[in-house]
């Protein structure tokens, strides 16, 4: 399949998923080609009207030399040299690389600038850009990508683009703006929704394993608390606990079970925040300079500088998500502790079904995961470093993306341990969870069978559980890789 883009409204999260994760191609639609051709013609009229007017990167040099003007007869050569020089700007190295699906997403997000004619570029440039998605994409290092705007990572992304025939005004829309932030937010958003669903299932399994009272998730709380995100969390927990027997539950329950709806609600809020940042950013025109088509007051249109290259909504949303994962990681650790204490103090079921012990032995792993997640939740702020007097504020989005990913990885690990412990506790007590959780329990046990005796491979199996969860977050499959 091919995603056809005709307007900014085609830059949706779903289309992003199709291109980035699904590997689909992108075609520039006829409406977009017409709009771009008109935009290009109008821009050239504006440029020809006065080639001494200031248009950043077109009639001027760039960055700290923006005040230097480029003579009219050198402006085309400047455009081509500009493009090449930018291509040589790829300076970041080390720290691993962005997954190729994210690089595909950046190329997709970049096209939003073009389709409405704001880029000043010919349709052929957008088509050439879209064609990058039909081949392998270059590696984009994770270290060294913090600068004003996103030209550093974009120089890597555009490595394979033919630039020798670029014309005036066509280099900047390839490199400037903030498509990287849009793609990093979108990539995170797609995984975060899946991860939150996994969390709700596994915490519900923990509720069943502990035998926690169900009234902490009662439907009356939806209205009494009155928050849409907490309601979403409560609804999800009730869905997975449907049919759970209210009898035989513990009378004394730790706070970590009672506050589950509230802390998961926080995660819902954070996921919604990053989804919103992705939706808005994917369809934003962030190019600098931007071309605005003619209107009554400006018959030739306008090309002017903005701060679109700095995305200020993606990194705070990623920060909030990292913090939500860190808090949930702590909550998972508290659940595991509670399950262990309850199992140790409870009499063994008359017929536990096996010689399973009260715990898996994975519990000590959690302290490290909690601490790592909390470290990753330290927010990424605007970088303290200054490149030069003109480029005096940099974009922190790469760091925020990496910290969120680190917090998410820790949370996957904590969920894996909680799932294994809940499975173990249920077996130890000779109980089955509510019906909607039984497939989940089977999937957990397929990877991490209940522990009997003192097996040597619990660490690797725990790692397998965490890896399966991480894969499921990317693909959207049910937790631990079973089909939805």
């Amino acid at each position, binding site marked *: 399949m091919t995603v056809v883009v005709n307007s900014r409204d085609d830059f949706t999260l779903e289309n992003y998923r199709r291109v980035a994760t699904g590997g689909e191609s992108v075609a520039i639609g006829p409406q977009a080609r017409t709009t771009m051709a008109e935009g290009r013609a109008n821009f050239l009229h504006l440029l020809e009207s006065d080639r001494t007017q200031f248009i950043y990167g077109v009639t001027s040099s760039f960055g700290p030399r923006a005040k230097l003007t480029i003579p009219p007869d050198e402006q085309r050569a400047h455009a081509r040299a500009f493009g090449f020089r930018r291509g040589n700007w790829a300076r970041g190295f080390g720290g691993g690389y962005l997954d190729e699906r994210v690089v595909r997403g950046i190329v997709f997000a970049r096209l939003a600038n073009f389709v409405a004619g704001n880029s000043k570029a010919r349709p052929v440039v957008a088509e050439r850009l879209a064609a990058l998605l039909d081949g392998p994409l270059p590696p984009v290092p994770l270290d060294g990508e913090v600068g004003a705007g996103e030209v550093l990572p974009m120089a890597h992304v555009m490595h394979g683009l033919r630039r020798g025939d670029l014309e005036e005004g066509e280099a900047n829309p390839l490199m400037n703006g903030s498509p990287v932030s849009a793609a990093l937010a979108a990539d995170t958003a797609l995984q975060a929704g899946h991860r939150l669903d996994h969390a709700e299932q596994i915490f519900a399994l923990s509720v069943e394993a502990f035998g926690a009272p169900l*009234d902490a998730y009662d439907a009356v709380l939806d209205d009494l608390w009155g*928050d849409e995100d907490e309601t979403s969390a409560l609804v999800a927990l009730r869905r997975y606990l449907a049919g759970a027997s209210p009898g035989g539950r513990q009378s004394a329950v730790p706070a970590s079970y009672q506050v589950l709806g509230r802390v998961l609600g*926080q995660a819902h809020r954070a996921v919604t925040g990053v989804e919103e940042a992705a939706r808005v950013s994917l369809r934003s025109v962030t190019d600098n300079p931007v071309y605005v088509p003619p209107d009554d007051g400006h018959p030739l249109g306008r090309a002017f500088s903005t701060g679109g290259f700095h995305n200020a909504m993606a990194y705070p949303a990623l920060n909030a998500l990292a913090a939500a994962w860190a808090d949930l990681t702590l909550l998972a650790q508290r659940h595991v502790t509670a399950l262990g204490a309850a199992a140790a103090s409870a009499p063994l079921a008359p017929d536990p079904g096996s010689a399973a012990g009260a715990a898996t032995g994975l519990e000590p792993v959690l302290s490290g995961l909690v601490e790592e997640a909390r470290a990753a939740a330290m927010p990424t702020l605007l970088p303290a470093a200054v490149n030069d007097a003109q480029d005096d504020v940099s974009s922190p989005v790469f760091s925020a993306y990496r910290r969120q990913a680190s917090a998410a990885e820790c949370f996957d690990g904590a969920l894996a341990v909680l799932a294994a412990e809940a499975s173990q506790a249920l077996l130890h007590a000779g109980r089955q969870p509510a019906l909607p959780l039984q497939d989940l329990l089977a999937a957990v046990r397929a990877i991490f069978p209940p522990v009997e005796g003192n097996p040597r491979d619990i660490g690797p199996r725990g790692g397998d559980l965490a890896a399966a969860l991480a894969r499921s977050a990317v693909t959207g499959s049910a937790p631990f890789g079973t089909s939805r």
Partner: protein
Amino acid sequence: MTVVVNTRDDFTLTNFSRVSYGGEPVRIGAVARRAMTASAGPGPAVGSPGKETVRPARWATPGADFGGGYLDAAVVRGILFARLASLVSGHAGVRPSVAEQVAALLDGPMPAVPLDGQVSAGEAVPMAHVLAGLRRDDLHAGEEEALLGGSPCSAALAAGAAVGARHRLGYAEGICALSIEGFRAPLTAYDEAVDGLWGDPHETAALRGLRRYLDGAGTAERRFHQAPVSYRIIPRVLGQAHRAVAAVEKAATVSLRSVTSNVVYVGDELGRPAGRPVRSGGYLNGMAYPALNALSAAWADLALVAERQVTALNTAETSGLPVNLVAPGAPGNGTYAYGWAANGYVEEARAAATPALLPGAVEEPRADVLSPTFGAYRRERRAAECLDGVLAILAIVSSQALFVTGRNPAQPLLPVLSFVRSVFPPIDGTGDRDLSADGGRLQQALGTAALSGRFAT
């Protein structure tokens, strides 16, 4: 005036402000009294939970001081107001007379509520301070827990922060616009066309805020090329602050009217209006502290961008303005080193932006998750104070830039400039001035404006 509360819908941010900052008393309305009477029933609360599930209430020792300073009396008033939301609907199983006693506390002086040592599972520890003056010897079973339980502190702390934040954002936009005028930055970065291109409501709000102040600004003497990044991205950074303020307002709005009692009483299958007790985790507010964290981060980022603008204005090679903004022929160093002073505020603001997460400590096996709201609140206060410091410096430097070039800003900014100069007159090289004291007064004036909402009016 008196705020009469009848239902949860009366627990609005506006009524919070009236009670907290306006000092108005609260009365329990007839509708609320009926609801509470119907649900509380005669004698002990209906459906009081089993004794084993009731954690012992802990009342603070009167006069106990755990340090760290105290909550403002206005915020303590707000906590008392927020406490009533869980009571008036009848879900807490508390008699009207008890709610009236709580409301009556607002007619007297507020108790001291220490800022340190308030982290616990739920908010029973600070609530014990807040309710220290309440008569407790005739409380029925369940009423004590209803008074100490839930999360009214989070609601009030979020509401207090929200009220101040909206005002602070307003004057931040005014001072950033003054800086744009001082620097003579091109206005296109704030053009109306950008609203649709970026397509974000919060950034649009920021762009509109800047345009409102810059309405009628001249275009003739502006630099022909683009301004430094810190000027071009200011609408996006202010947009981030708009988003954070909206989030804390939402957290406050939702939390103020939430019923968060540890045990709520709801209708049962027999039709009794309060026949079924439901024990929940309402005592942990999961939305206030993340919202406060985000607000602290937004203030820290805004402080950094403001500091960069101070540097740009103070650097002649960048701004094209006189060196150190020294008035022509005047002695002294002008605004030199104010940028250095801004650095300290920026670093403190960034430290305060470290988020308050769920605390690592465990009180006891059942109290295994604690509330971090007090920590988040204190950090937001500190980040806001530091932002005010940087904004004061930016206002001083912007005013000076206009002074040394003999210019006036756009008409809507004249009251802002007048406000700034009423506290910090331009440095004209005459006489001795304590520039630290003058700057501190401007910072304090901004802090006062955050509470009062009166800035340059």
